[in-house]
């Protein structure tokens, strides 16, 4: 079929130069771009539905067991949460600059941007590690080791209202959702960092500064999506009610 097309239209390929990255089932680079961007967005929309289920569970349980959610949320460190938000936004900004470097064919700039994206991504996971570690030490991980004592007998300086033991047990639901949501978010970041390493190697070889920017662009979409999830997780998990005792 292909050879016939060439035979019946001699010389067409000389007039019409196809870049190597244009797949044979697309007519033009623009068509390929539009179709693949559409596909990437459809994938991201399924991701919204995936995280959306957890957000829906969060909304309902937060309304049911509000005192438990507020008290449990106040055990998280705002400093670490806000720092991590800034770190992730910075990582996203580096990624955005990477897309610009690829589009303007700056190989060194692209490599540097991807390295910065990876470093800030790893920094985020590092902070998350210390946050998780503290939860294990305080027995705030749902399960047999879970301790409600901090919520039933809060320290005087915390200004927290003591919870009845049955309500205090519900802090386990908060922490289950906390670990599920931040854990799935962290898993997405770990997968992203794996992909970043691959993109970094290929970028170093000049694969995405020859006019073919789509892999960088679509990875950018994924990375920004992960950012957006965190933009919602931060206020919803860390800042439920910061007026204890009021």
């Amino acid at each position, binding site marked *: 079929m292909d050879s016939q097309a060439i035979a019946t239209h001699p010389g067409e390929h000389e007039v019409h130069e196809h870049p190597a990255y244009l797949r044979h089932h697309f007519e*033009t*680079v*623009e068509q390929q*771009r*539009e179709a693949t*961007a*559409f596909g990437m*967005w*459809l994938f*991201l*929309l399924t991701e*919204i*539905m995936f995280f*959306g289920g957890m*957000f*829906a569970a969060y*909304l*309902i349980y937060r*309304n*049911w067991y509000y005192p438990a959610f507020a008290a449990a949320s106040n055990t998280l460190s*705002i400093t670490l949460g*806000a720092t991590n*938000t*800034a770190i992730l*936004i*910075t990582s*996203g*900004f580096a*990624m*955005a*600059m990477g*897309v*610009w470097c690829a*589009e*303007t064919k700056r190989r060194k700039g692209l490599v540097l941007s991807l390295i910065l994206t990876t470093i800030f991504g790893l920094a985020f996971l590092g902070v998350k590690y210390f946050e998780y570690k503290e939860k294990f030490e305080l027995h705030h991980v749902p399960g047999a080791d879970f301790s409600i004592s901090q919520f039933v007998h809060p320290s005087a300086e915390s200004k927290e209202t003591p919870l009845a033991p049955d309500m205090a047990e519900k802090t386990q639901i908060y922490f289950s959702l906390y670990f599920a949501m931040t854990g799935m978010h962290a898993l997405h970041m770990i997968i992203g960092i794996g992909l970043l390493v691959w993109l970094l190697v290929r970028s170093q070889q000049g694969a995405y500064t020859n006019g073919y920017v789509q892999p960088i*662009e679509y990875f*950018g*979409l994924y990375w*920004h*999506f992960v*950012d*957006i999830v965190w*933009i*919602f997780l*931060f*206020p*919803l998990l860390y*800042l*439920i*009610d*910061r*007026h204890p005792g*009021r």
Partner: protein
Amino acid sequence: MAHSKLAAESYDHDDPEAIHHIVTPTTYIAVYLALLVGTALTVIAAFLPLGPLNPVVAVAIACFKAVIVILFFMHVYYSSRLMKLTVAAGFFTFIVLIMMVLSDYMSRSWGLW
């Protein structure tokens, strides 16, 4: 609105170069700073005694941040109509699902749980 006027300019399908709009670093820096300011505002707002408005303000700021990420970092502002419609339809469906779940929980004889 100025926004829709600019958006109309951004998808001129007769010119392939117009479709692949290269977003400049200036735009990225502006969005980046806006996101950092938004994060600071979220933290400040959480300590203000706004009562039931506290979560509303927090989610409103988060939505604003998400929208600027989607429009500029994710280039939707410069995309074709098809892409804008797809993204909007996805979020709309998500909101519909959330509303249906919440209206279900609010309209049953809860309080007996």
